């Protein structure tokens, strides 16, 4: 494990990503203390450009709402949706993959055909369809993203389980009299996890993008600021007030970049063969 940490630390891109991600998380979490302006409070100072007034360092939008406060609130939405959707996809997909790998036979067939059925539909279209049916909201956004992304962890975990099922230490555990669920959770799962970590990062990056895209199309939760919705609003006045679309766009690029870099760094660090070379 320490070896992996060392390998990760040697990747400058991965470290940069990690720093960026930590910064984003810290900003998002401490937003109410750091910049306590209400992101939804309108003010008469509308369409203020950035770096003009100290009260609104990044300017204001069409209703005079503080852009910095809205960007920070948008970060919270973005990261919250990404974390919740990734966790849900990993839990659901992991459980299904573990079950399929261990049971084999009909259960395995069923689970894998189901995963394929979800995978043939592009993830974003599936999420779009689900949200249009369920109605916009934070819960439906998370559920839709999770529903569109569970097959990848399911297939990955199933493959790991199939690989580990015949490993000596698993056979030994079975011989020692452990029950099948015990073997699955105590012996197989911990050893199957390493490749799941980078996948989680990739899922989270995709979730940030899908959340922004849904909000851009007006299918996000209208009750909390979202970068996607901010870009959609700003797009209409791109020439008169370019900062309204550019700032949330930049925030979106940076956070997806950070999560992706971390994911790639993890994949490098945890891939034993390439690291050994």
């Amino acid at each position, binding site marked *: 494990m320490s070896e992996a940490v060392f390998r990760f630390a040697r990747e400058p891109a991965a470290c940069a990503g990690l720093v960026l991600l930590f910064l984003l998380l810290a900003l998002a979490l401490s937003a109410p203390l750091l910049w306590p302006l209400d992101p939804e409070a*309108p003010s008469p100072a509308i369409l203020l450009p950035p770096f003009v007034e100290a009260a609104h360092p990044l300017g204001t939008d*069409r*209703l005079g709402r503080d852009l910095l406060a809205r960007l920070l609130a948008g970060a919270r939405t973005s990261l919250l949706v990404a974390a919740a959707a990734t966790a849900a996809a990993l839990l659901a997909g992991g459980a299904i993959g573990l079950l399929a790998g261990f049971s084999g036979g009909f259960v395995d067939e069923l689970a894998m055909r189901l995963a394929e059925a979800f995978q043939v539909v592009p993830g974003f279209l599936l999420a779009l369809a689900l949200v249009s049916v369920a*109605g916009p909201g934070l819960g439906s956004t998370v559920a839709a993203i999770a529903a569109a992304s569970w097959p990848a962890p399911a297939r990955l975990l199933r493959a790991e389980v199939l690989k580990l099922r015949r490993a000596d230490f698993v056979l030994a555990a079975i011989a020692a009299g452990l029950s099948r669920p015990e073997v699955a959770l105590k012996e197989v799962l911990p050893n199957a996890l390493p490749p799941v970590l980078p996948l989680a990062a990739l899922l989270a990056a995709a979730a940030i993008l899908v959340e922004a895209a849904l909000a851009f199309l007006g299918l996000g939760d209208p009750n909390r600021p979202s970068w996607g919705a901010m870009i959609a609003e700003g797009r*209409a006045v791109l*020439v*008169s007030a370019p900062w309204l679309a550019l700032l949330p766009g930049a925030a979106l690029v940076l956070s997806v970049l950070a999560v992706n870099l971390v994911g790639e760094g993890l994949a490098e660090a945890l891939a034993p063969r390439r690291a050994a070379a």
Partner: protein
Amino acid sequence: MKLDRRAFLASALVPLLSPGASLGAATPRRGGVLVVAADTEPRNLNPALVASNGVFFVASKVVEPLAEMAYTDAGLEPRLALSWEGSRDGRSVTFRLRPGVRFHDGTPFTSADVAYCALELWKKHQNLGRAFFKDLEAVDTPDPHTAVLRFSEPTPAQLVANALPPLTAVVPRRLFEGTDPLANPHNQKLVGTGPFRFVEHKPGQYYRLERNPDYWGAPLPWLDGIVYRVLPDRGAIAAALESGEIHLAAFSAVPLADMKRLASVPGIAVIAEGYEGITYQITVEINHRRKELADVRVRRAIAHAIDRDFVVRTIFLGWAKPATGPVPRFDKAFYTDDVPSYPFDPARAEALLDAAGYPRKADGVRFAVELMPAPWFEQTRQMGEYLRQALRTIGIEARLVLKDPAGHQKAVYTDHAFDLAIGSPVYRNDPAISTTILYESGLPAGVPFSNQYGYANPEMDRVIRAAARALDPEERAALYRRFQRLAMEDLPIVPVCEFTFLTVARTSVRNVASNPRWAVSNWADCWLEA
């Protein structure tokens, strides 16, 4: 070109003062094709069946009504009818029709066409006509140029006259009789009497109209044709105007936040006139089935929580006026400001809510509501976001619910599944056309843009019914003043501000905003500088 908003607002009654229609001594020039932006492509383009501004924008150049609004004292200008006169008992209105008019297919326009449209299209199928012409019994046609509309109940001639511009588009009987009017191909391939003939519609691309050389108003029209480029993206419309790809964008198709910048671009003018006859309002629609909202004190508290000046200055960037009631100021015949008003006063709002028995609870919230802004205008959505914050300051927690247009209409006007909504009703020249319907009770569920709020006041219903039957204009006006007072006392819905749209045009386009319904009128006198 410099833009002075105050000058614009002050010039509301002097329409030709705006820069786009500056009073040059220039003489009109024949020729040129006007290219304008269109953002919707209605499935049914027949204005005799669908009376909506989206349809009129294209169709009014091809199919004409009996009369059009005008910036004159009479307020109306003849089109297919030369004159109209009501009988003393209010049961009939006689129209003298313009002779020598031909439809684009060469057949003559006669009273038989008016009779057919009135009885078979306007009365049976048209969204506004179904209610307005419900008492229309028969149309007599003593000769080809006289049509007598006969009503089963007394119907004020003034009301009929006011309804002429939006409700009375005439299409040829010959092409519609004996068919299912709603499935008739000429709902797309329009045939009318207007200054322009319908040539083609390429979905997603453009509509093309060409000059009608046999127009009754010769030498009009000046233009050789009009092309409507379908440009659904609002950002693209501003760019197309600046590059000269299009000449004109109506109905505030360019975002308001871009207007100031565009007005300073040489060769482009922003014109605020030409929409007075289709004044819109922003309203807070209230579901009286919610116990809290059925209390008039709570509704008044909501009205006191809204800073109308703020809404006008920010959401509309000054291009609107605070509303005093359901009738806009432009309508001199009916408007009164002698009504209860609810100035911005959050403290008073809170006192009203306390008195109504809804104190702030431990978490500072009195009660929670769902707020559904209509999705059709950027301003209705922004008003939703503003109102949520305004309500929060007086202790009402509002959760925004956004739906697509069809879903919104169903939720509010059919299922009544909302607490508060942001609406945008249109005032069409007379309270009886599309305004009193927002206040009268007993309407079946599903009638869009009507009182689906669960509000019922017998006195209100009595006033509305009496005004719809009052033949004397003075008596009608008095009844409608009473209507406005009742509307503001009971406050079943809260009028916030009234607004009209803006036209952005190249300065080479002349005679823009030449009447109060300009964008949806026939553009026969519009011309292009060389």
